[in-house]
């Protein structure tokens, strides 16, 4: 057996992680004694970039923070700007926004089921759920014009309308998906190897979930009934109420059940939204210059509570945009869940919070630095190279095999 306390780095590159994060584990045999988490590998400077673009351009930029929760970010941003500009979004637009939001939730949860299956070695579940995910992606392509990054929002409403044939197609698609989801629920609850891998793993008690600030299905599986659609209704959710699905297993199995329950709830909501779709315009005209104001908006993304803050200053461009993604709230809980667990459980525990580190990596604070000021891109590059050189990294060895001209 390896030495008593082994330091194993999981990440930033690791087959278990879909996006780069660094977990520094202290292992004793197969048991994890301590887990340290470092974020920041996916930081792209989106919040700063938002300040240099107009509101309408920012809508598309914010949408691309994440591929799976793209509609969540875009809608939250649009709602924040509409609040700053004091626009009243028409009812039909709100319903269409909620419809696309629920379809996105279906897409995200089906994807999660597949990923969870893959992390425990159950590739068949991955293939089947992702095959069924194509149904919802085709529906979204028909509704919005693209399979991901839907671009259906605009400041003041939505850009596209839903026709009656599209409504019929959505209802057909939802019927197929509902049947398949019922089958996956039976597989998740009855398959013995899955139950062994998912039960008793990643335990998070109710009090810990509240203390660590968990959101979304992670919290709801520990009996914490937090759901922004119920606590703080936005879009059409005031008129079409949501049943909050909770579970008391407090572990990964509970999270699986919560997500499967939410899938069934989504199908019910989609049907209700389509049946009660009100007539009317789909957008109001939005001013280019938004008066000075601040707005804070919460949206229930598939992963949990997504918070957007927008500060406007009377010009075409926002003064400050801040995004707090749900994974940032859940990642503290992960460190707690990994302690006293097995190394073999790390992939499924991390996957159970449905991590989206692209959403999460926003601002990085350099603690204890005496440096102040602004660096240009070139200066930042020089600084990085010098920093590594001081620590003994020899750059000449790295580019040895590149022939001239091949290195772009």
């Amino acid at each position, binding site marked *: *057996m*390896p030495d008593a306390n*082994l330091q*194993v*780095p999981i990440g930033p590159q*690791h*087959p*278990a992680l879909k996006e780069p994060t660094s977990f520094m584990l202290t292992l004793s045999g*197969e048991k994890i004694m301590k887990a340290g988490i470092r974020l920041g590998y996916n930081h792209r400077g989106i919040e700063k970039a938002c300040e240099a673009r107009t509101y309408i351009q920012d809508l598309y930029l914010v949408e691309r923070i994440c591929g799976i929760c793209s509609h969540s970010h875009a809608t939250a941003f649009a709602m924040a700007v509409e609040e700053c500009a004091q626009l009243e979004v028409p009812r039909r637009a709100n319903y269409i926004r909620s419809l696309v939001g629920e379809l996105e939730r279906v897409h995200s949860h089906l994807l999660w089921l597949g990923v969870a*299956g*893959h*992390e*425990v*070695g*159950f*590739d*068949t*579940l991955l*293939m*089947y759920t992702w*095959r069924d995910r194509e149904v919802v992606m085709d529906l979204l392509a028909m509704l919005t014009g693209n399979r991901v990054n839907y671009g259906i929002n605009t400041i003041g409403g939505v850009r596209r309308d839903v026709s009656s044939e599209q409504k019929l197609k959505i209802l057909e698609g939802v019927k197929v998906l509902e049947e398949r989801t019922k089958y996956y629920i039976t597989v998740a609850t009855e*398959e013995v*190897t*899955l139950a*062994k*891998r998912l039960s008793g793993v990643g335990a998070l008690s109710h009090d810990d979930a509240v203390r660590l600030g968990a959101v979304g299905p992670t919290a709801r599986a520990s009996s914490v009934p937090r759901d922004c659609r119920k606590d703080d209704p936005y879009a059409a959710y005031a008129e079409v109420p949501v049943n909050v699905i909770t579970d008391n297993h407090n572990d990964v199995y509970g999270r699986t059940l919560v997500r499967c329950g939410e899938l069934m709830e989504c199908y019910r909501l989609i049907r209700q939204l389509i049946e009660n779709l009100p007539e009317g315009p789909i957008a109001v005209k939005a001013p280019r210059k938004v008066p000075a104001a601040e707005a804070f908006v919460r949206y229930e993304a598939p992963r949990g509570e997504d918070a957007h803050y927008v500060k406007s200053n009377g010009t075409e461009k926002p003064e400050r945009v801040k995004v707090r993604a749900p994974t940032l709230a859940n990642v503290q809980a992960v460190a707690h869940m990994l302690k006293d667990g*097995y*190394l*073999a*459980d*790390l*992939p499924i525990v991390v996957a159970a919070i449905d991590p989206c580190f692209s959403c999460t990596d926003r601002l990085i604070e350099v603690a204890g630095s005496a440096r102040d000021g602004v660096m240009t891109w070139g200066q930042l590059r020089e600084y990085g190279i010098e920093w590594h050189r001081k620590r003994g990294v020899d750059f000449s060895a790295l580019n040895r095999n590149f022939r001239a001209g091949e290195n772009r």
Partner: protein
Amino acid sequence: MEHTLAGVLFHILIFPGLLFLATMALFAEYVDRKVCARLQNRVGPPWFQPWADFIKLMAKENLVPELVDRPMFAIAPLVALTSVVTALMYIPIWKSSALYAFKGDAIVVLYLLSIPTVAFFLGGWYSRSLFSMIGAARAITQLFAYEVPLVLSILAPALLADTWSLSELTKYYAAHPLHMLFNVIGLAVGLLALLGKLERVPFDAPEAETEIVAGTLTEYSGKLLAIFRMAISVEMIVGGSLLAAVYLPFGLNLGPEVGFGLYLVKVFAIVCLISLLRSVFARLRIDQMVTFCWRYVAPVAFLQLLIDLAAKGLMKGPVGP
């Protein structure tokens, strides 16, 4: 022919040795991947994919990390491959006696089949990489779990046939085909133990892709990786042949062509069964796997042993010493 130098070389290198086994192994890998794909509603790779993978790997650069213990790193795959190829020499394929049969060769075959696992352990351990060391440790832990059921599953029919030689065993069962029915439970036990030996889902922990990158194979590349992967595929063929010889020895006295054809059918049926099991289960954690083997599989293997002892007693009874 069998005991001249040219004969021996022919048997080791061509048939049923290296060339035959390599072809069968690559074809079996194709069957496994294709069956798995069809069960998952996908298309799967074309027939030449395993050959293409093998040739590509042989042509790639062999990257050996600095900290590695070079001799052990290079020898481990070769040891794994040669031991499984040697094991096939003692397993009856197209007729009731194997090529180099002798008394007690069942024990030798079991021993030779456990060498690849030790080779995985050594290769992973001397790779000195964290992930490969964890994979190596898991491979040896798994050996402790499935080895007893595997040995018992070969022991029980051997006990009934009153011999330690695989060739005598097949002759006995070819002569008394109905006695195979006593061993049905043993076939299930043998199959599960074989899954453990081959490190396939659900007993996949030493090679868990999402947890420890690739386990033992993490630091291997190029020719050594090609040889290791070939050893794994050949192990599947040899394990399947062993199970076929011990549990399905019918048709072996119908002449070499028919016997060989039936042998191919049996081995590929076992490969398809392994693919099916791979598709319907998730991966068990290493501690769950050990508990499962000791709590359920080993007692059933003992049960099979008792059944065979009782059957032997009953059959000898009326005749009596």
